[in-house]
């Protein structure tokens, strides 16, 4: 589904990703772990198409298409979803209104008719229950006055509504208490299918107690330096990132 080959990316002239390669197939959950500054969030931003980052070399194909050629919105419509590390507050724009627009733009892209108001509301009800998001939050302005946990649950709610092929969770566990973590994780697990894939970017192992990855990659200094199964995460937690640095 996603194939990243020898990706180099920089911001303001500083190279962050230095030859990253990664392949994700449908049905798989991948976790990327790494110390601060390794390039984890840069990878997420580059996948979503954030214009602050410049890809200097390498390739990303998504469903056999050149992802780097696509605009931010095209990537989303093709099925790439980024759950933000720091969800944005947008006063005056209601959560449901924005989601309705998003869903219908995606449907139009796929040649599907717009969702009726009734079907849309049914979907909101169903999916907000999945992440235990209060229905009143769904109708409020995007993330305005939401707690940290509510913001993250709102990200997973949006993911549930948009049904992406590839979900990239950028440090979704940061700032979450145990209960919120469990709700977010169970949302992700419920949405898992043979057709879609998930890339979990995290600093800590604890999220991986709830979302069991098929592969764990260690990102260090802009490259993947180690790949293994879920036990790698435990090993990292135990030995710390210095262990990777010494392996290097």
């Amino acid at each position, binding site marked *: 589904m996603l194939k990243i080959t020898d990706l180099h990316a920089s911001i303001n002239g500083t190279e962050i990703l230095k030859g990253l390669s990664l392949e994700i197939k449908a049905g798989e959950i991948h976790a990327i772990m790494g110390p601060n500054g390794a390039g984890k969030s840069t990878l997420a931003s580059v996948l*979503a198409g954030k214009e602050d980052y410049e890809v200097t070399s390498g390739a990303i194909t998504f469903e056999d298409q050149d992802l780097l050629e696509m605009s931010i*919105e095209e990537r989303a419509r093709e099925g790439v979803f980024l759950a933000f590390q720091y969800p944005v507050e*947008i*006063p005056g724009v209601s959560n449901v209104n*924005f989601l309705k627009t998003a869903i219908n733009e995606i449907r139009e*892209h796929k040649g599907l008719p717009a969702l009726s108001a009734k079907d849309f509301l049914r979907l909101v009800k169903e999916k907000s229950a999945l992440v235990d998001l209060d229905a009143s939050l769904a109708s409020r302005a995007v993330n305005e006055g939401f707690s940290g946990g509510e913001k993250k649950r709102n990200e997973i709610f*949006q993911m549930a509504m948009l049904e992406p092929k590839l979900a990239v969770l950028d440090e979704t566990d940061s700032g979450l208490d145990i209960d919120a973590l469990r709700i977010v994780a169970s949302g992700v697990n419920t949405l898992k299918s043979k057709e879609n894939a998930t890339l979990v970017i995290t600093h800590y192992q604890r999220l991986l107690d709830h979302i069991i990855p098929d592969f764990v990659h260690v990102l260090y200094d802009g490259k993947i330096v180690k790949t293994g199964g879920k036990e790698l995460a435990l090993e990292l937690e135990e030995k710390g990132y210095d262990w990777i640095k010494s392996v290097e």
Partner: protein
Amino acid sequence: MSGTLIDFCKQLEPTALKLPAALLQAARDGVEFQHHFPTTREEPWKYTRLGRVAALKLTPVNINQSAERLPASDTIDIIFEHETWHCAEPTAGLHIDFSGDLDASAWNACTLQGHVQHINALSAQGGVAIRVDANTTLIKPIRIIHRLQGEHTGLILHHQLVLGNHASAQVEVFFEGTSEDSYANVLFDFFIGAGANLHADMLQQTKGTHYGFHTQRIYQQKDSTFALQTLTANTHFTRNEVEVFSQEEGTHTQLYGAFIGRENNHIDNHTYVHHKAPNCTSDENYKGVLADKATGVFNGKVKVYQDAQKINAYQSNKNILLSDSASINAKPELEIYADDVKCSHGSTTGQLDQHALFFLRARGISETKATDMLIKGFMAEIVGAVKSIHIQEALHALLD
């Protein structure tokens, strides 16, 4: 320098209003003393050039004195369209007259300030005089429509709205149509009686090279409430002057405004709130979005007089510039002579929130639509305060 103010007024007919002699004399003295249109060296016009206005060749609009009656609708309609004015049948407790029919005594409370008001006093072709009796609550909103058309037209109107004690009314005002090389100078005097409540929404959306000067003067008595929402959308040239006189205790004033400009539009909002009495509140919130080479002005002034203790005055102005060539000059001003007041003011100008734009696009929404959504979201506070369904509908059509 183009023509003098006297020349400008000569193109127009002498006033159709029976103004007190002293007031007319003051207006004559005013244009003679001022002589030319003010330049940008004069503070109130620092950011608004009047050269093009001074050069306008105008034909006055001669408005028929007696209104043609309109059929009943869900609003009490008053329409100014070219040289005619129409109005609905008044209902119980409501009186609608031609302002030219009012006796001189009806204008006693008027004062004149600046060349816009001087021109208005000398050349007003009429206007509507609305009176709501004391203790009357109007169920239907009053809708005043100015439908502008033609070229080189000069429309000068002086409206008066008097709300008796404990009366309550809602007004919606429209400026629409297409008009080229034209001038409109429309003045409203609002007299809000004790305990009375007036909610007014105004939409300015005239197309063409139209120069619109809009003045609203509000005189508030004890415990009265006045709310005005001024919405300006893509007008070539608009100057709004709102002046509130809070004369007695317990008044509440809300001045909200939203303006959207594009191309070479110029939209100028001047407000002045006089807190002359204690225990009053005022809440001011103006938001602007300017694209292309549009220019905007916000100058909001709040003056708290010496005896006006326990005033709570809030003022905010926020602007978004969508292009490098758009500009805004913002000037919030506070003048406080009392020592026990709560006042705040602030102004910010920035670009569209790039994080929010990225977020919306990352959910599959096109850049254009995402931009529209953010602008709409930015304006939501102001638009949400509009009660007029007609204006709400017009705004949704404009912003979608």
